[in-house]
């Protein structure tokens, strides 16, 4: 009776996940969806705490203690984190989920190796899979975090011929796992430890060569991995909500990964092998001799103030400088003078899809002011002024005319079709993808160097003078 009731609660939890995720994919219901998924998780955890298990010692003290610790750490980090660091945070949370799955699998495997439990062949296989995927998701996510946080540079963690190193590691990992699986009658603890170490190394090495604009794709893929490891663990515990939740996340992560790859016009394989950064020499060569024209604050303020229409193209520089609210103030000042201010959001601007939307939403920029790439490109020829703030690769014309460039073929925002372009940037250094941008030398383009926030503040002061 009680067991049936609790299984029905699991069903309720699983249904909440599915409906919650569905609601999260539409702007009107997204918040409700998140609340519903949270509800599903709460009931699922409660049900797990109280489902009757024959002769179980329960050890509730251990469980509640650990839940308190984890809950508090999770809550505080989620509340304290800066909006700009959101992608890293998601990556860390994701990695910890993977670590949880890996810890589970290694505990079960150790018990088995010590002769404390008996596993069927199928269970052993699934445990090995859980361990592999979980461990890869853990170290991969942590490296992705370190890269996004700027703790390590792409070049610091790669070997020459890194793809070959990766293949060897993967081969060793699979061979070792197969060895453990085939010799299941006589399991040795050290071999299982070796499998885990190899998987941890591979996760690190797998993410190491991937950099540039590809980071969001990897995080999304690792997110799918964590989901799959949770689902595999669900098969071991024969727990249906783990299976449903894990698989849902697995498909979500894969779909998102594919959508992001599409936005960049590249295949997943191309991303994983690390196409960026290999041939960037050819694209930089002719850039050095050209001169970029600078603009003064006063000139820019006047141009903006008397434009009919202005499109702002935000990028990662805006996020780093925390300049979203200052942009909004500029928008207010200009709009008050009748300027039509819009924002063009490239699908992969920033470090994650939707990153810019989140930032601008934080600054209370109204939803209708945000244009997606297609709409923005249609409006470009009728736009007086484009202000590119801290974006680079997503406005690179090489995507159209330089087959040698790594971004060739990627859809970009055609800012050069507008009447004037001003690029705000910290320096002439290339963007995250490590390639030079011909836009800076375009005859319509003027540059304004400096940190996005302080530059925009000075610009706001200049506009205010015009306003009085």
């Amino acid at each position, binding site marked *: 009776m009680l067991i049936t009731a609790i299984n029905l609660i699991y069903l309720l939890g699983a249904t909440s996940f599915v409906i*919650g*995720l569905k609601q999260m*994919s*539409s702007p009107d219901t997204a*918040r409700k969806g*998140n609340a519903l998924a949270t509800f599903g*998780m709460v009931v699922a955890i409660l049900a797990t705490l109280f489902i009757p298990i024959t002769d*179980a*010692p*329960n*050890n509730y003290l251990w*469980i509640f203690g650990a*839940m308190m*610790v*984890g809950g508090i*750490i*999770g*809550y505080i980090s*989620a*509340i304290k984190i800066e909006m700009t660091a959101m992608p890293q*945070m*998601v990556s860390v*949370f*994701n990695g910890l*989920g993977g670590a*949880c*799955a890996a810890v*589970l699998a*290694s*505990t079960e495997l*150790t018990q088995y190796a010590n002769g404390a439990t008996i596993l069927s*062949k199928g*269970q052993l296989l699934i445990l090995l899979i859980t361990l592999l995927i979980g461990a890869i998701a853990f170290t991969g996510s942590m490296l992705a975090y370190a890269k996004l946080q700027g703790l390590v540079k792409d070049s610091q963690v790669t070997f020459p011929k890194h793809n070959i190193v990766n293949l060897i590691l993967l081969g060793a990992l699979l061979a070792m796992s197969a060895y453990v699986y085939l010799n299941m009658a006589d399991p040795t603890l050290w071999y299982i430890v070796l499998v885990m170490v190899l998987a941890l190394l591979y996760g690190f090495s797998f993410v190491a060569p991937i950099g540039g604009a590809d980071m969001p794709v990897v*995080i999304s893929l690792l*997110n799918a991995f964590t*989901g799959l490891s949770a689902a595999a663990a*669900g*098969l*071991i*515990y*024969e727990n*249906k909500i783990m*299976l449903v*939740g894990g*698989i*849902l*996340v*697995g*498909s*979500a*992560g894969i779909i*998102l990964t594919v*959508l992001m790859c599409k936005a960049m016009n590249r295949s997943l394989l191309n991303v994983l092998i690390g196409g960026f950064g290999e041939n960037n020499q050819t694209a930089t060569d002719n850039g050095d001799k050209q001169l970029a024209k600078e603009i003064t604050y006063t000139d820019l303020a006047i141009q903006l103030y008397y434009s009919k229409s202005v499109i702002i193209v935000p990028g990662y520089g805006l996020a780093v400088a925390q300049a979203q609210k200052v942009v909004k103030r500029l928008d207010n000042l200009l709009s008050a003078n009748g300027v039509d201010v819009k924002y063009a*959001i490239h*699908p992969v601007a920033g470090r*994650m899809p*939707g990153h810019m*939307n989140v930032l601008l*939403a934080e600054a209370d920029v109204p939803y209708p002011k945000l244009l*997606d790439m297609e709409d923005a490109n249609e409006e470009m020829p009728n736009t007086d002024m484009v202000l590119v703030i801290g974006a680079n690769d997503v406005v690179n014309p090489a995507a159209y005319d330089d087959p040698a460039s790594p971004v060739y073929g990627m859809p970009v925002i055609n800012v050069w079709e507008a009447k004037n372009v001003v690029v705000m940037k910290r320096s002439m250094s290339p963007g995250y993808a490590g390639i030079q941008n011909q836009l800076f030398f375009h005859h319509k383009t003027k540059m304004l160097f400096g940190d996005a926030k302080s530059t925009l503040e000075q610009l706001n002061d200049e506009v205010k003078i015009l306003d009085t």
Partner: protein
Amino acid sequence: MEQLFLYLENNLILIYLLIFTVILGFEVISKVPTVLHTPLMSGANAISGVVIIGAILLIRNAAPTDYFSLSLGALGVVLGMINVVGGFAVTNRMLKMFSKKKK
């Protein structure tokens, strides 16, 4: 091989569930506006924290003197809990900003 087939046979319902959920997942998520990609990824990430359930079951079944399983299980619960609580809280923070500006 035979044992593997036996396992598949015994868990056929779970395998049905697995395959249908994959299809369901693709269908539920295939149409998402770019705006929601980051919150959706974050929300999905929080859901992947269901793995915590395995950790709870591990502790509940461990002998009270089996400190190896207990401590690793507790580590699993801590990690899973950070994933779940942090994940949902961060997602809610992101989405809150969307709903605020709608008014």
